């Protein structure tokens, strides 16, 4: 299987008053056609920054290095004009907060149609007609009426469906869903995940789901990337990760949340003692050492590489991986 999206050594740092802060540190991941990959971690672990950097959506103060290849085309350092042709067409986003992520003064039909007008050169009338189709595709009842609604007239779940309709309007190769269900009720969450899965099945869209919710991962992802303090600490197929987590952090996460897989809506990953370290560069240590029960001098002296651990496609960055029972 050839990857459709390949991220290699992606590093993002921000210049601030108190010096350079590194948010993402040599992150590598890939996405195959029709695959759903989950990126999981606590808030501030760099997962959203990773997502935003893929299509160059970070503010100018961010320094991004490494490589992001979409169907073989390099996006890092690509001119703004060609990135614009990629955004919304090849690589589309669904954001967390559908209340604030939709423009309050434009109808949802207009906001969906906009993408089609830009990328597919549709007329305003054609775009509107297509918007109605898209709204029914994501399961919005009486789409022909809803198309002229403003965001404040819709419920949270419907707004998130509008976000998805907007993202899939041009049939993108890759969909990046950044915390797509966080702001929603548990019952509504299930519906949204169903829509995403359905899109993958019907259109073959590859989806990168960014979340802090292991329940979402268990529900939808094929493979999982676990991030901690800007680095990938473990990467594995979903079943293998939940059955045999190898990194001490992943292990802690799974212990901290109730039975994963059973639908988990509200648990957040707050149960591991300690705080995520401030993201200043610390190249010569495992970033989790401070909170790790198994940490020793090796962990504080050098950073573990992300390496295979015996099982197919299971990688971990840990000097003292959890023993498999």
């Amino acid at each position, binding site marked *: 299987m050839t990857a459709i999206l390949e991220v290699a050594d992606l590093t993002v740092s921000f210049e601030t008053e108190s010096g350079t802060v590194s948010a993402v540190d040599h992150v590598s991941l890939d996405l195959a056609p029709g695959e759903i990959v989950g990126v999981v971690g606590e808030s501030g672990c760099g997962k959203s920054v990773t997502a935003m950097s893929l299509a160059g959506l970070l503010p100018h103060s961010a320094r991004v290095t490494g490589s992001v290849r979409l169907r073989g085309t390099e996006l890092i350092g690509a001119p703004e004009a060609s990135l614009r042709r990629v955004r919304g067409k090849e690589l589309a986003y669904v954001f967390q907060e559908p209340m604030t992520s939709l423009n309050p003064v434009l109808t949802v039909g207009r906001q969906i149609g906009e993408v089609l007008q830009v990328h597919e050169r549709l007329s305003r009338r054609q775009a509107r007609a297509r918007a109605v189709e898209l709204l029914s595709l994501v399961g919005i009842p009486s789409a022909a009426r809803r198309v002229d609604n403003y965001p404040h007239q819709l419920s949270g779940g419907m707004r998130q469906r509008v976000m998805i309709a907007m993202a899939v309007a041009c049939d993108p190769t890759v969909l990046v869903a950044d915390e797509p269900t966080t702001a929603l009720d548990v019952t509504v969450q299930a519906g949204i995940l169903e829509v995403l899965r359905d899109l993958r099945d019907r259109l073959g869209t590859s989806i990168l789901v960014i979340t802090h919710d292991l329940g979402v991962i268990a529900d939808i992802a094929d493979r999982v990337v676990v991030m901690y303090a800007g680095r990938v600490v473990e990467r594995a197929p979903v079943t293998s990760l939940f059955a045999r987590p190898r990194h001490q952090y992943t292990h802690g996460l799974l212990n901290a949340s109730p039975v994963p897989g059973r639908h988990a809506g509200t648990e957040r990953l707050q149960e*591991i*003692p*300690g*705080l995520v370290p401030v993201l200043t560069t610390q190249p010569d240590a495992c970033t989790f050492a*401070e*909170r790790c029960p198994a940490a020793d001098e090796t962990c504080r002296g050098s950073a573990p590489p992300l390496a295979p651990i015996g099982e197919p496609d299971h990688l971990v960055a840990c000097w003292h991986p959890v023993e498999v029972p």
Partner: protein
Amino acid sequence: MTVLTVPEAETNPSLTRRTRVFRRLRRNPLAVISFVVLAIAVAVALLAPWIAPHAVEDTDFGSIFSPPGTPGHLLGTDDLGRDVLSRIMYGARASLEVGLLAVLTALVIGVPLGLAAGYFRTLDAIIGRFTDLLLAFPFLILAVGLAAIRGASLGNAAVAIGIAQIPGVIRVIRSDTLRLKSLDFVAAAVVDGASDLWVLSRHILPNATSVILVQATVALPAAILGEAVLSFLGLGIQPPDPSLGTMLATAQQFAARAPWAATLPGLVIMILALTFNVFGDALRDALDPKGDR
């Protein structure tokens, strides 16, 4: 597994906040420059009777319309041969006087009303209508009305400007009171059975000081400009008392003969208002909690 880093609570937030505001102001070159200019302007205005080279009413018909640079008259003389520099010093003094009077009027009336509107729901609607009513009378029209009833004077100009600034004061104090009222420590005081007056004077007013201060720095330059306008039109300070506005009114008639007389007082008004505005902006930025990162 142990809990490692827990951020320590600040011991005295108000004290550290004050030092932080001062530090931010000191680091902002615009704030420092505008503060220095303001200090000089205030000093000159206060000391005008002692440092002005001539008395304001000294006429010298032998040398009317002397250009700037004339010996003894650094900035020249006007149509009656009076020293322009001396009159500008006294004029700036009058500007600041009216400005302070106006802003004090606005604060004395506006702050209690703003506190009441934000704190007592029942009064909010009534004070809101009062604000609407005041807004309907622009300061110049108010000044016209006052001048018609009581005659034009420095005091009336200050009152007209002050009244016109009340709605602005009410608005910002009201919204700050609403914000403070929702904070825990105020709610705790209310639960403890503190009287409304106690809560307002001990908890809300002290915390609203920074907002009042910023509003005052916004209102002052506006009041200075207002005084100049009213005096220019003859609705404020009356000749022969020196005022930058009346100087410009006189200079207008002789502008072709003595353009400097029509230029300099206006420049002084602008510099006064500009430095107040720049300092006000810097102060607002320094006090902005969003900058506390």
